[in-house]
């Protein structure tokens, strides 16, 4: 259920750290096919390997830049920060972890909310930041996602949430868990109001995020080869005392089992979403 389970996968795939585009040096290596790519070129390719189409992890702001129309986005609720409600101490203080995450990501929490437009459609969009304590969901992420839903309810603009998260944040205990209930209650209202909600799942989306808003879109779509599941692979391997087969819990596996609407490559995401937004908004004005 919690974010960390994906941090050090016991499964053979390359370490998560290596999957991220390294910021130093001019070249980067594709973790999937070992292709050496000039970084400037990678940027233009939306961080997708030109040889094997491996989708590199991208941060929340970059995601919003790729997905939405340029120069149109306005961030909201950026100031919300965790108050360490449990005064949680393990080997590190939780406030120290937060401080470090804020410094390294330039975000106050693991989600960025904006109002913007996508190929001319006005939308509310929340993108999760995996680099912020594994994209884990505590009180602030729960609150911000809820406020994004409420913004959609107030403005009747379609909602898009891009997930990247290991699940609930342990350091806020049961308050983290209850964010799932809070968000789903708000989503129930959005559902009843027939306001479109498109959930985009990216690598990785597991635990309490998958078991709440990420699976409740009118459409649940994912990037290729994203790890998507409830339990993390390590936990499952410990339970069944077996190694998991390659591709287990990846986007392709989920589509095969009927659990995802579509796999959409990053470069097609804008067009795919825009067409569905046409479908979802026209029906409402014309049909009622």
């Amino acid at each position, binding site marked *: *259920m*919690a974010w*960390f*389970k994906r941090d050090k996968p016991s499964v053979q795939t390359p370490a998560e750290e290596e999957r991220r585009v390294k910021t130093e040096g001019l070249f980067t290596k594709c973790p999937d096919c070992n292709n050496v790519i000039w970084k400037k070129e990678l940027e233009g390719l939306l961080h997708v390997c030109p040889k094997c189409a491996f989708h590199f992890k991208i941060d929340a702001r970059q995601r919003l830049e790729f997905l939405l129309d340029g120069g149109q986005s306005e961030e909201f609720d950026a*100031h*919300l920060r*965790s*108050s360490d*409600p*449990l005064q*949680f*101490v*393990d*080997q590190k203080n939780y406030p120290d972890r937060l401080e470090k995450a804020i410094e390294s990501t330039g975000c106050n929490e693991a989600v960025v909310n904006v109002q913007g437009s996508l190929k001319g459609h006005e939308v509310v969009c929340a993108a999760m930041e995996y680099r912020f304590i594994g994209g884990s969901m*505590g*009180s*602030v992420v*729960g*609150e911000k996602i*809820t406020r994004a839903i409420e913004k959609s309810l107030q403005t009747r603009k379609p909602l898009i949430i891009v997930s990247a998260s290991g699940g*609930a944040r*342990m350091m*806020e*205990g*049961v*308050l983290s*868990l*209850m*964010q*799932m*209930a*809070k968000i*789903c*209650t*708000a*989503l*129930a209202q959005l*559902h*009843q109001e027939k306001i479109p909600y498109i959930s985009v799942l990216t690598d990785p989306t597991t*635990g309490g995020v*998958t*078991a*709440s*808003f*990420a*699976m*409740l879109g009118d459409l649940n779509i994912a990037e290729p080869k994203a790890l998507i*599941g*409830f*339990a993390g692979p390590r*936990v*499952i391997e410990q*339970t*069944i005392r077996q190694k998991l087969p390659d591709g*287990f*819990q990846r986007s392709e*596996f989920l589509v095969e*089992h*009927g*659990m995802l609407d579509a796999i959409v490559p990053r470069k097609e995401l804008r067009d795919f979403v825009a067409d569905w937004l046409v479908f979802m908004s026209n029906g409402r004005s014309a049909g009622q």
Partner: protein
Amino acid sequence: MMSKFEELTELKERAEALPPEATEAIAELTLRITQLEESIGKENATAWDQVQLSRHENRPYTLDFIERLFTSFRPIHGDRRFADDTAIVGGMALLEDQPVMVIGQQKGRNTKERIYRNYGMAKPEGYRKAVRLMQIAEKFNRPILTFIDTPGAYPGTGAEARGQAEAIAHNLRTMAELQVPIVATVLGEGGSGGALALSLADRILMLRHSIYSVISPESCSAILWKDQAHTQQAAHALRLTAPDLEHFKVVDEVVPEPPEGAHSDWDAAAALVKESLLRNLGELQVQSAQQRLRGRSEKFRRIGEFVE
């Protein structure tokens, strides 16, 4: 995954076939249980004591409560999609002559039963059965009473393939929309998303020695301290006891247990739960469906602490 109590029961079951050093282990565990039982009601009872009490081998389980709270329990099975999940039980029952829908997680008391109940860990078909029963209750305008006692949702390959996450998410949204009153009672272990999937209720009641947590203390210790030695510290850090949850306004009422704990007197424990259930349900039933929906939504809307 197994608690000390479960280990002890299994050891006792096989005692004759065990080597002499096992006798020592049994003695040690028995001593620990004695200490634990002595700690009940004392100021210095630790969070870890509470965790162990919530998993006590003699603690009454969902069906034990159902037997004492209701008459005419008529269980029904299956999700009409894939299978019947034996980790979740449910059906109609009479609460003082009033028809109610009862749904709860069920643990087993000996090895055979525990395997049959999958240690109280439901699969997607269990959550889908639960939501199906809730929709029957909605159609016929009957209250829903859920009972929580699970280490968590089952983390297996089949469960993943059949959409464990989607099943839980769907339950949460559905429960947020139901017009009938919902009261959830945490009886033993409230384990993470698997427990939450039956808890999006108008009122959440929690037995004094039950727990509710985002992760088990064992897993929390393994992840944050990289060992099993800090399980007790993790239990403390997670703030998972009934008074903790009341403090964070997640739980509406802490239901007292008999002086020696629920495991010492099942009838008395059930009587205390019944009093609380009847009172809370009564309060909800004088409200309109609209009032309840607003109340439910506001209850969860407020949960969480942060700085603006």
